[in-house]
C-alpha cells in the first residue's frame, strides 16, 4: 500500500521524493541494502554455505536457549538452531514474496493497460472493476481468497498477488494516461504516426519504466503481507521455516523465549527495508535521468 500511494506523489513534484531520496542518497544505506540482498540470494541458492547445522536437527538438550556464540539467534522448543532455520527459510519466504509481486504486477499491468488504452467499453468496464477491487483493503481481499481456496503456499502467493494488484493497476493506468497526454505523444500524432506505433514506441516505454522500481518495492511489501498471513496461521504450515510461520510458531513461547518472534520479525523488517531502499534508489535514478 505504501509504495502505491507514494509513487504518484513523487511524480507530481520533486519535493514528494524527498523522503525516499534522502534515504536513497545516503550511500551507506544503499550499500547495506545491496549487501543484504546479495546475502539473501546466497541464502536462497545455497543456504548450506551460510550455516553449519541443518534446519531440522533436533537437540532437546539445547531447547529454548537465548542467543549465544554457538546459536547467534538462539534455539527453539526442539533445540533447532534459529539462525539456520531463518537462513533456510529465506527460500520459502522470498519465493512467495517474489511470486506474489510478479502475480501482482503482472495482473496490474494487464488491467492497468486495458483500462487506459483499451477500446472504450472495455476500458470503462475494466476501470470500474479495478475501482471495485480497490475498495477491499489488500489484506481482506487476500483473506477472502484464502477462505475460498483454503490455506497453502500457492494460495498465499495468489492471495497476496491479487490482493495488492488493484493499487498497482490504478498506478499503471495513471502513468499511461499521463504519458498519453504528454508533448512527445502530441508531436508523434502531429507527425502522422499510427496509433499502434505511438503506443508501442512512446507511451508504453515511458509509462512502464518506473515499474522496475515498483517491482522492487512490491517484493518488500509482498513479503510483509505474506508473512502476515502465515502469522495468522493462514499461510504455509509451521514445519516449513518460512519466516511468517516461524513467527507464528514462536508466539506460543513469547513469555519465555522472545528471540523466537523478535528475530524472524527483524529479518522481515530488514528485507522490506532493503527492498524499499533499492526500489527508491532506482526510482530516483530514473527520474533524474528523465529530467536531464
Amino acid at each position, binding site marked *: 500500500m505504501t509504495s502505491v500511494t507514494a509513487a504518484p506523489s513523487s511524480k507530481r513534484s520533486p519535493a514528494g521524493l*524527498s523522503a525516499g531520496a534522502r534515504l536513497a542518497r545516503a550511500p551507506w544505506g544503499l550499500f547495506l541494502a545491496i549487501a543484504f540482498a546479495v546475502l539473501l540470494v546466497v541464502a536462497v541458492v545455497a543456504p548450506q554455505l551460510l550455516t553449519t547445522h541443518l534446519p531440522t536437527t533436533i537437540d532437546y538438550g539445547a531447547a529454548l536457549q537465548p542467543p549465544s556464540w554457538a546459536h547467534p539467534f538462539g534455539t527453539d522448543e526442539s533445540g533447532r538452531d534459529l539462525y539456520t532455520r531463518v537462513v533456510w527459510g529465506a527460500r520459502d519466504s522470498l519465493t512467495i514474496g517474489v511470486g506474489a509481486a510478479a502475480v501482482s504486477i503482472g495482473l496490474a499491468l494487464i488491467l492497468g493497460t486495458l483500462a487506459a488504452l483499451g477500446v472504450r467499453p472495455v476500458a470503462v468496464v475494466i476501470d470500474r472493476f479495478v475501482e471495485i477491487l480497490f*475498495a477491499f483493503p489488500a489484506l*481482506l481481499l487476500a*483473506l477472502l481468497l484464502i*477462505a475460498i481456496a483454503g490455506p497453502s503456499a500457492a494460495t498465499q502467493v495468489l492471495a497476496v498477488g491479487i490482493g495488492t494488484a488493484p493499487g498497482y493497476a490504478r498506478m499503471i493506468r495513471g502513468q499511461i494516461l499521463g504519458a498519453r497526454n504528454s508533448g512527445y505523444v502530441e508531436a508523434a500524432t502531429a507527425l502522422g504516426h499510427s496509433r499502434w506505433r505511438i503506443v508501442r514506441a512512446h507511451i508504453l516505454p515511458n509509462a512502464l519504466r518506473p515499474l522496475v522500481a515498483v517491482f522492487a518495492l512490491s517484493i518488500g511489501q509482498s513479503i*510483509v503481507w505474506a508473512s502476515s498471513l502465515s502469522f495468522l496461521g493462514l499461510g504455509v504450515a509451521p514445519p516449513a521455516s518460512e519466516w511468517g510461520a516461524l513467527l507464528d510458531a514462536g508466539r506460543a513461547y513469547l513469555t519465555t523465549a522472545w528471540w523466537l518472534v523478535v528475530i524472524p520479525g527483524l529479518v522481515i523488517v530488514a528485507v*522490506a527495508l532493503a527492498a524499499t531502499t533499492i526500489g527508491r534508489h532506482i526510482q530516483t535514478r530514473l527520474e533524474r535521468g528523465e529530467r536531464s
Partner: protein
Amino acid sequence: MTRISPSSPAPSELRAPAGVEAAAGGAAVLSTVRPRRGRAVALTLLKKAGAAVVVLWGAATVAFFAQLALPGDRATTILNIRAGQVQLRTPAELEQIRAQYGLTRPVILQYIDYLRGLIAGDFGTSYQQYRPVTAIIGEQLGSTVTLSLTAIALAWVIMVVWVTLTAGRGPRVGALGSTVDVVTAGLPAYWLGIILLLVFGLGLRWFPIISGSSPNGIVLPALTLAIPLAGFMAQSVRTEFERSLDQPFVLSARMRGMGEWGIRLRHVLRHAVIPAVTLSGWALGATLSGAVIVESIFSRPGIGSVLVTAVNSQDLPVVTGIVTLVAVVYVAANLIVDVVYTVIDPRLELS
C-alpha cells in the same frame, strides 16, 4: 534538499493548499460571484455518489460470487463446516440445507435476493454458528471501531508532534525525521505489536498483556496501528510542511515578528496537514484491516478475530459480510472526504 527552492516547478493547480487558502472566503464566493457554482457542485457530488454506488454494487457482487466459488457441493460443504469434519451426507440432509439456504433456486434469483438482503441489512446466515451474520458482526463491531478511531487519533498526535519538531530544521534533523517516517511506515503490524507487548506488557508491566476490553488495554493495540500510520502520513505532511515554510505568508508572519513556534503551529501546520486529511478515508480502511492482526496479537475481541476464525473454518457468509462491511466503510469515508473537498474547493466551476 531540505527546503524546496522557489524556482522548483510547483504545479499550483494540482495542490490543495491554494484551494484551502481560498476556502476561508469560500462562502462569499458561493453566494455572490458565481451563480453556476451551485449547479457544478451538485453535479459533481451526484457523479461521485453514483460512482460510489457502482463500486458498492460491484463489491457486493464480488462477495456473492465468492460464496459460490467455494469448491465442491455447497450443501455438503455447509454441513461439513457445521460438523467440523468431512463425511458423506444423505440426500435428505442435503435437501434440508438446500431448502434452508435457497440453493435450489436459479443463481440469478439467489443473487437478487442477496442484494435485496444487503440493502435491508441482512448479510445472510453463518454456516457455523446458525446465526445471522449481522448479529455476529454487530456484537463485535464496537470494539474494532473504538480501536480503529483511537489509532487514527493517536496517529495524528504522533505525526503532528514529530513533523512539527523535525521538519525544516536543517539537513541532519530533516534526514533523521524522514528516515524515521519511512522506517516506521514500513513496520509490519505483527512485529511492532509484539515488540510493544514485550517491552511495555511483559518488561515494564505498564499495560495488560491480554488487552480484553479494559480501557487500559487499548493503548498497545492502538499504538501498534498508529505508529506505521503516523509514519505514512508524516511522509506527505513533511513535504508539504517544508514547502509551506518557504511561502510568502510565512515571510510576512516573520516580518510581523511572529516567533518560530507561532509560525509553525498557526500557519504552516494548517496547510501541511491537508494531505493527511485526504488520507483519512484510506486510514480508516487500513486500521480496520490492520485490526485483524492486532486483535490476534493482543487477544482482543472484535471483527478482526471473528474474521480469522471464519476464514479458518471457511464460514464464507461471515467472511464476505465483514469484508463487504469494511469495503462499505472505506468507500463511504472516501466519498465524505471527496464531498468535503468539492464543497470547499472554490476552483470548481461548470465549464
